[in-house]
C-alpha cells in the first residue's frame, strides 16, 4: 500500500503548517452565539413540551381511574338502563317470574318497570336493595342476581360503607349466582358473559385497559448498502454486528379482548463495523429516538375462566425515528452526524406473548422486526433493518366496558 506523504515536499509543507494559529474576525462568533441562543430556546421549548405531555398523560390516567377504587353510585342510572335494554336475557326462571307477576315480559326494561318492580328499580339504583329489605319479591331478587352476575351491579369495594349485593370480584359473588336457582349451564353462561374468574376476580381481558410501563430490547441492526458492508459480517466473514440495547417507555390501550393500540418511546442504539469507505473499518455507533405506533390483535387468548389471562399478540404499525447521535471511533475521519439522515420512517411487525402477573401487571415478551426507509451514511445510501427481542412490563388501569 502506498504510504501517504512520503515526499520531501509534503514533509516540508507539513512541518511548516504544524501548530499554526490564525485569528479569525469577530464575525464567526456572532453567528455561533446566535445559533447557541437558538439551541437554548429549543431546549427550553423541549422541556415545556415534555411537561405538557406529562400533564396530558396525568389527565388521561385520571380519566382511567382504576376500576377497583370506583365505589360511587353516580353511574348506576347508566348500568340499570344498560341492563334494562338487554334484549335476549331470558331464562326459564325469569320467564316464570314474569308470567306469575308483572304480566310484562317483553324485556328486562319492562320487567323492571312492572308492577312489583317499581320499588325495586330505585333500590337497585341506590344499591341497597338487600339492606333496605326491598328485595321482597322473588322476581326482583332473581333480577338482582342476574344483574350481579352480568357485572351490571356496581360492586361496592367498601362493603362496610356501601353494602350492595355481591358483585364480580367480591367474595360470595359466585355463591350468589349459584344460589340464584339458575340452571348450571345458565350459570356457566352467566360466568362467561360476566368474565369473572372462578376465584371471583375480574378477567382483565374483558375491560378496556390503559397500560403504561417500560420496555427493554436487545436488538441487532443491519445497514443494507452498496457502499457499506453493513453490520452483518466483514470480508473475512467475522461477525461484526453487535447486539445493542433499546429501552424506553411504553403505553397501550386495549379497546377490547382482541384489539388494542400500542405506542413506545425508545432510545435505540446500534453498533457495527465494516464501512468500506476509505478501506478502514471504523466502529459506527448510532442512536435514534424511535416511536413505533402499532395496532395490536390478541389471539389464542386463554385464562378467561381459569387462572390469570395470557394471550399471543400480533402487532404491526409504523415507526418514526430521529437521529439522536452518531459516533465513530478514533480512526474515522469523515463521518459525522450531519451526514446521516436526521429522520427515518419505517415499518414494524411484532409477535409477542403477554402474561398477566396480576389483573393489573402484565409481562410481555416478544420479537420485533423493523425495516427503515432509505437513508444516508457518509456517501452511501443505506436502509436499516433490525430484529429485536424484548421484554415489557405494564401496569394497567381499567375502564369498564359498557
Amino acid at each position, binding site marked *: 500500500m502506498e504510504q*501517504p506523504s512520503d515526499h520531501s515536499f*509534503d514533509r516540508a509543507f507539513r512541518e511548516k*503548517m504544524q501548530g499554526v494559529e490564525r485569528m479569525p474576525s469577530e464575525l464567526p462568533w456572532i453567528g455561533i452565539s446566535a445559533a447557541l441562543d437558538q439551541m437554548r430556546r429549543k431546549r427550553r421549548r423541549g422541556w415545556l413540551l415534555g411537561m405538557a405531555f406529562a400533564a396530558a398523560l396525568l389527565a388521561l390516567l385520571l380519566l382511567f381511574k382504576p376500576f377497583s377504587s370506583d365505589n360511587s353510585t353516580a353511574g348506576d342510572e347508566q348500568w340499570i338502563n344498560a341492563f334494562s335494554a338487554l334484549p335476549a336475557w331470558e331464562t326459564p326462571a325469569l320467564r316464570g317470574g314474569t308470567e306469575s307477576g308483572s304480566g310484562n315480559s317483553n324485556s328486562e326494561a319492562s320487567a323492571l318497570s312492572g308492577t312489583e318492580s317499581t320499588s325495586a328499580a330505585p333500590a337497585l339504583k341506590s344499591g341497597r336493595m338487600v339492606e333496605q329489605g326491598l328485595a321482597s319479591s322473588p322476581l326482583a331478587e332473581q333480577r338482582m342476581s342476574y344483574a350481579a352476575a352480568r357485572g351490571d351491579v356496581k360492586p361496592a369495594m367498601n362493603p362496610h360503607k356501601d353494602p350492595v349485593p355481591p358483585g364480580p370480584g367480591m367474595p360470595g359473588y359466585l355463591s350468589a349466582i349459584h344460589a340464584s336457582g339458575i340452571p348450571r349451564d345458565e350459570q356457566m353462561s352467566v360466568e362467561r358473559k360476566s368474565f369473572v374468574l372462578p376465584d371471583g376476580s375480574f378477567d382483565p381481558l374483558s375491560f378496556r385497559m390503559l397500560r403504561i410501563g417500560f420496555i427493554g430490547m436487545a436488538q441487532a441492526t443491519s445497514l443494507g448498502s452498496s457502499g457499506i458492508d453493513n453490520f452483518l459480517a466483514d470480508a473475512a466473514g467475522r461477525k461484526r454486528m453487535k447486539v445493542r440495547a433499546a429501552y424506553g417507555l411504553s403505553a397501550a390501550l386495549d379497546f377490547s379482548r382482541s384489539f388494542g393500540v400500542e405506542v413506545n418511546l425508545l432510545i435505540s442504539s446500534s453498533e457495527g463495523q465494516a464501512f468500506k469507505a476509505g478501506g478502514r473499518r471504523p466502529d459506527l455507533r448510532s442512536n435514534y429516538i424511535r416511536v413505533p405506533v402499532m395496532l395490536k390483535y390478541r389471539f389464542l387468548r386463554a385464562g378467561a375462566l381459569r387462572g390469570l389471562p395470557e394471550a399471543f399478540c400480533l402487532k404491526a404499525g409504523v415507526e418514526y425515528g430521529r437521529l439522536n447521535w452518531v459516533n465513530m471511533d478514533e480512526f474515522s475521519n469523515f463521518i459525522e452526524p450531519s451526514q446521516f439522515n436526521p429522520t427515518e420512517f419505517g415499518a414494524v411487525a411484532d409477535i409477542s406473548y403477554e402474561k398477566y402477573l396480576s389483573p393489573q401487571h402484565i409481562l410481555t415478551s416478544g420479537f420485533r422486526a423493523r425495516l427503515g426507509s432509505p437513508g444516508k451514511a457518509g456517501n452511501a445510501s443505506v436502509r436499516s433493518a433490525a430484529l429485536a427481542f424484548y421484554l415489557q412490563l405494564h401496569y394497567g388501569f381499567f375502564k369498564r366496558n359498557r
Partner: protein
Amino acid sequence: MSTSRAAYPEKELIRQCLKGRANAQRQLYEHFAPRMFAVCLRYAKNRHNAEDILQEGFIKVFKYLKNFRGDGSFEGWMRRIFVNTAIEHYRKNSKVYSVEDIPVDYQETTVNPAIQNMSVDELLELVERLPNGYRMVFNLYVMEGLNHREIAGELGISEGTSKSQLARARAQLQKMIAERELKEYGTAI
C-alpha cells in the same frame, strides 16, 4: 478577540459547555478558534470562506459535544469536524471535474528548502490559489494522511483523479514557489 487560554481545564470546560453555560462556550471558542481557523484557511479558497467553515464547524462542535467520548484528543475530534465541514463546503460549492489520469512527473527540486524561507501566510496564500479540487486532495493527503482510496471515497472521485490532482497540486505549488523565489531574489534557491 483575546487569545487567552481557558480559565477551566479542558474537561471542566467541556462539562460547563454541556450544561449550556454561555461563558464556557465563549472560552472554548477562544481557546480553539485560532488553531481551527488555521485548518479552515488551508481548505478554503479565501478568508471569508474560511470564517464560514469556522462558524459552521463550531456550531457542530457545540451541538454534538455530548457525543465526545473523552477517550481521545478533544482537539483531534474537533479537527475532524472542521475538516468534514470543509469537505461539505467543497461538495456544496464546487463542481468536481474529473481530471484525466495523466501522470505528472514529480521532481525533487530545490524548491523544498524555499518553503522553510517562506512565512506561513505566504504559503497559505499559495495554497489558496490552487484550484478547489487540487487544494482538497493536497490537504487530505499531505495534512490528514489519507490515501487515494479514502480521498476518492470522501470526494466522490476516482482514485486516478485523486492521484493526478495531487501531482498537479504539488507541481503547481512548486512552480508558484519557484516563481516567487525568482521574483524575490532574482534566482531560484
